[in-house]
């Protein structure tokens, strides 16, 4: 690098003071993201006695793997719900991405006649919902979504927000000339979408897939609503949420329930067990991030500088 270039770089770069400041700010931000998770891991390895005596702490009085051995003793119930979490997430993500792409692609195509109508149809549901009870009636009574995997997947399959994101992505990254060119070259609609357009919008699909995977992975409310008898289909998140809600309920109603509440509280899992379950829930989805990240970053920079 010759001298002139060096000066240019220096001219464009931030000063050392600003650099340091940015590093510190970003460093603190990263720390704020990672510390709670480390804390959860530490608590999951803390002994119950230590929690009772000094509460949650980064430096517990004594360590213990009791929570994890208890988790493994949960046996079938745990592994089954863990499996369910994966199943629901994978199936749900694949289906919802397919639906999202197939819905938003025509909305991007100017030659689709009813595109305003379908645009409106999806947008409308984003602003006005039917409310909890009517939704429940439609899903359970009309569609039979209860006590099965479908009940945990179908209600989340279509997201108007994702459709808007995806449509915008089509509009900004796929030039209309590309469609014209492929038509001229003799590609039919299927080939145009699958072989010409889809490779261009991969980053967009990755973003949608990540959003959907997160939504399915973290979902517990659908289980609460629709799973009443068949507990074999519930995901791990609901197992954890149920424990948490039991504890909250007993805390709130202890005065009403009296001795019953005190006795019921004995059956609740310990604090460290809850944290151990959180670890179980967070680790797989945290591992999924790096795979998506490549595309998401690519999506952010695509189209920024083009000839």
């Amino acid at each position, binding site marked *: 690098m010759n001298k002139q270039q060096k000066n240019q770089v220096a001219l464009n770069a931030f000063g050392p003071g600003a650099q340091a400041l940015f590093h510190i700010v970003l460093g603190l931000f990263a720390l704020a993201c990672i510390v709670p998770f480390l804390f959860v891991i530490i608590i999951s390895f803390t002994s119950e006695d230590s929690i009772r005596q000094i509460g949650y702490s980064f430096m517990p009085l004594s360590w213990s793997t009791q929570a994890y051995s208890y988790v493994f003793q949960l046996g079938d119930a745990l592994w089954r719900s863990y499996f369910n979490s994966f199943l629901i997430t994978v199936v749900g993500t694949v289906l919802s991405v397919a639906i999202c792409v197939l819905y938003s692609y025509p909305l991007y195509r100017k030659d689709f006649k009813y595109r305003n109508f379908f645009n409106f149809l999806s947008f409308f549901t984003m602003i006005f919902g039917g409310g909890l009870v009517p939704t429940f009636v439609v899903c359970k009574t009309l569609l039979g979504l209860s006590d099965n995997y479908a009940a945990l997947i179908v209600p989340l399959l279509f997201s108007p927000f994702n459709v808007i994101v995806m449509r915008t992505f089509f509009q900004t990254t796929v030039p209309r000339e590309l469609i014209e060119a492929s038509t001229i070259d003799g590609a039919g609609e299927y080939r145009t979408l699958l072989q010409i357009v889809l490779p261009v919008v991969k980053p967009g699909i990755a973003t949608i897939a990540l959003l959907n995977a997160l939504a399915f992975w973290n979902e517990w409310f659908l289980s609460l609503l629709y799973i009443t*008898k068949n507990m074999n289909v519930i995901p791990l998140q609901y197992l954890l949420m149920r424990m948490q*809600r039991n504890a909250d*309920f007993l805390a709130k109603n202890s005065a*009403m329930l009296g*001795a019953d509440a*005190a006795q019921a509280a004995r*059956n609740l899992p310990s604090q460290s067990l809850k944290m151990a379950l959180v670890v179980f829930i967070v680790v797989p989805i945290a591992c999924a991030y790096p795979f998506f990240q490549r595309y998401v970053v690519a999506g952010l920079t695509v189209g920024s500088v083009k000839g």
Partner: protein
Amino acid sequence: MKKILSIVLALALLLTAMSFALAEELPTITIMFHGSNVTDDSAVLEAVNAYIADKVGAKLEVVWGTWGDFDDKATNALLSGDTGIDMVFTCSWSADEYNTYAKNGYFVKLDDLIAEYGADLVAAIPESLMQAATIEGAEGMGIYAVNGFKDTATQNTWDVNVTLLNELGYTLDDFKAMSFYDFGELFAKAKELKGDAFYPFLVEPMVLERMVTGSIIVAGDSGSTNLLSLYLNQDDVSAEGPEGNVILNKFATDEYRKFVDKMREYYEAGYVDPSLAVAETSNDTRTNTQKTGEYLIGTQSYAFGYEYSADVLDRGIEVAFVPCTDPYVDTTASQGAMVAISTASEHPVESFKFLALLNSDPTLMTLLNYGVEGIHYNLNADGLVEFTDERANYSPWTNGMGNVTILPDTAAEGAGFRESFKAYYAGAKAIPALGYVFDNAEVANEMAALGTVAAQYALALDAGALDPETTLPDFLAALDAAGMQTYLDAANAQLAAYLG
């Protein structure tokens, strides 16, 4: 001729098909319980269904609500008219609150069914509980749920660590002679003996407030933070209280001020664990500390026989429960656990027959509550119930099911326990305003606003974490601004009308 023959044959075929259809399986009735911890009910349901097939004419299915899930699941099922739920737990404190849901037409009026099929039920349940369930519902005055016979009276007690009390040089009788305002010397000595990290006073702040000021929960008042109060006559619970039958803003009384001042003193002296003053940690701290026995005096809303439960026996100390007053029957306690039939149910008659049987037949109640003999429990030489490890997979909430007085005695409780239990609650006296439920519909906005204000101050004040000198006036001003007077007036007008 051939034609006629074929028609006859076709008809015969049709008739056989129909008769098969008629002889088809029994209808299924489904019941939703609260607060259960059940992972495997197959053995129990098999036995139950064999037992009730002739008696009820239906098959039973159970939705085991857990503590945290029940409210959402029950209200969804009722509001959406779900025909898959025939019977549902209800009471004065759950989200499908008995009086409101009966009034809005979600529960079947049972009076006719009781007259026709309910003779055993009426014989098994005390008259007073039937009365407590008689309310003005969608179809007029009547009974809209089967009221469970359980610990139907309220009694708040001091939970005393007798082991430590004796170490400090006091006897239980010394303690009984003391009042809340004299506890200071006990706490000081305990703190001296056990060191700084020891908190002698392990309370549920809201319950403590009721114990000290003698206030009673008004049914229909704002959920977890009560605003209203009637006052108990502490010498004779069935007589009128010191304030008469008038509902007061509990935070504005002199008694309350005196109570929070004293509590502040105890808190400042380090007698109360600060985490008891925070809603999120209060109950956890209390139950966890109870387990270790690291306290001197606690509060306990008491149920007869609680001292024999594993919960108390495992603490490793001698525990005594010292009552503040006699047990009293108020609306909240007398509507504490009921089961109603949903108006969406397609099998109300079978459902009622089942409920009547459950509440009057010891075999069915034992089966559904304690499980199957030989699997979930065994009978020991004295004929007492001893639970096996399988019980962990099948632990319904006993009191939420109905008439618990027909259950057999367990080994932990001892022979004759259920008889004494029955006598204890049959003898409980009713407060003068029993049956009164505040219908808060007209002041729902005020109630929501007041509830928010109270949630901000009440627990911390009751626990002594806030200084009453400065915060109590703020609190009262905030309550006034949120419409306390309107709320009070509505409650009192209704009470006056109720008492006639």
